[in-house]
């Protein structure tokens, strides 16, 4: 295997995380900038995506163990599951459904194609799981990955402000809404505000990942 893809991914990601650690502006999100740079490099150099993808296969393979690993933070926050079980259950079911249905309906209503609607459906769950779900429901996994990251960036940039404007004060409500809507990137933002919100947000992310990945393949039959 040629190390081109691994090298270029590591090098660019390193540079962008360094920049981000100095200037914490949401627009400088390292994953998004690395993806855009690689798209630009491939586009300008004429190197095919297949060649890049093949040569960075090891990274993609590690998505599997990374998703399995999400069980540990989920278990670690178990006391919050016991304490707020009713709210968490309701928030996951309602939030998980609203995320999928609102996105799919909006795409269809505005004349978008079915491929795009399928790809946007899992956009509120964590990227690693969303890619797998997108594949299962015949979406475009790479488009899903980008839409998930953009959703996360919105949550990171404006989630707290939107909830402040809507006068939502409850810490559990704020955390859960953020985790269900904007996964890890939203969680990274709200944890700075409040520890309980941060923990519940992480739970919301993990549980909505499970909920959506079980529900969406069935829901897709009705929606499309």
């Amino acid at each position, binding site marked *: 295997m040629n190390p081109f893809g691994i090298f270029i991914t590591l090098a660019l990601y390193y540079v962008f995380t360094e920049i981000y650690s100095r200037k914490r502006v949401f627009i400088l999100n390292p994953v998004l900038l690395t993806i855009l740079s690689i798209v630009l490099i491939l586009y300008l150099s004429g190197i095919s995506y297949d060649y890049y993808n093949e040569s960075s296969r090891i990274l993609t393979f590690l998505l599997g163990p990374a998703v399995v690993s999400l069980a540990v933070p989920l278990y670690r926050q178990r006391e919050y599951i016991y304490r707020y079980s009713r709210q968490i259950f309701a928030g996951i079911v309602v939030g998980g459904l609203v995320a999928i249905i*609102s996105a799919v309906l909006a795409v269809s209503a505005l004349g978008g194609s079915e491929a795009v609607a399928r790809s946007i459906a899992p956009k509120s769950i964590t990227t690693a799981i969303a890619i797998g779900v997108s594949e299962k429901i015949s979406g475009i996994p790479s488009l899903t990955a980008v839409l998930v990251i953009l959703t996360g960036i919105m949550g990171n940039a404006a989630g707290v402000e939107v909830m402040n404007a809507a006068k939502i004060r409850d810490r559990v409500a704020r955390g859960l809404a953020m985790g269900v*809507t904007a996964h890890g990137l939203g969680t990274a933002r709200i944890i700075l505000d409040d520890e309980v919100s941060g923990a519940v947000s992480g739970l919301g992310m993990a549980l909505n990942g499970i909920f959506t990945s079980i529900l969406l393949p069935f829901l897709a039959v009705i929606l499309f």
Partner: protein
Amino acid sequence: MYRGLAIVFGFYFLEELLSKVLGLMIPGSVLGMILLTIALFSEVIRVEWCEKEAEFFVRHMSILFVPPGAGVILYLDLIKSELLPIAAALFISFFATLLITAKTVEVLR
């Protein structure tokens, strides 16, 4: 370290086997995550055995999204022609999900 990695990869392997045999609709690794969660809650697996390794994966997960994400290069025309529905749906769904979820949970307190 090896015990933790063996557990994480072991559950990934277990799930690959199970989803092949059972032909499940749940995507790959999510089943492994569910099984490991059950194993942790039932104390078949102690969290100390794999927490460091799992946390390493979770902390550095983001870079793994780059290769699949860069695949959008194959769909630039599609994105260009559907930019409005895509952008509008992202915004509408973001506000709807955030506020409806927060309000639902708040009412239940």
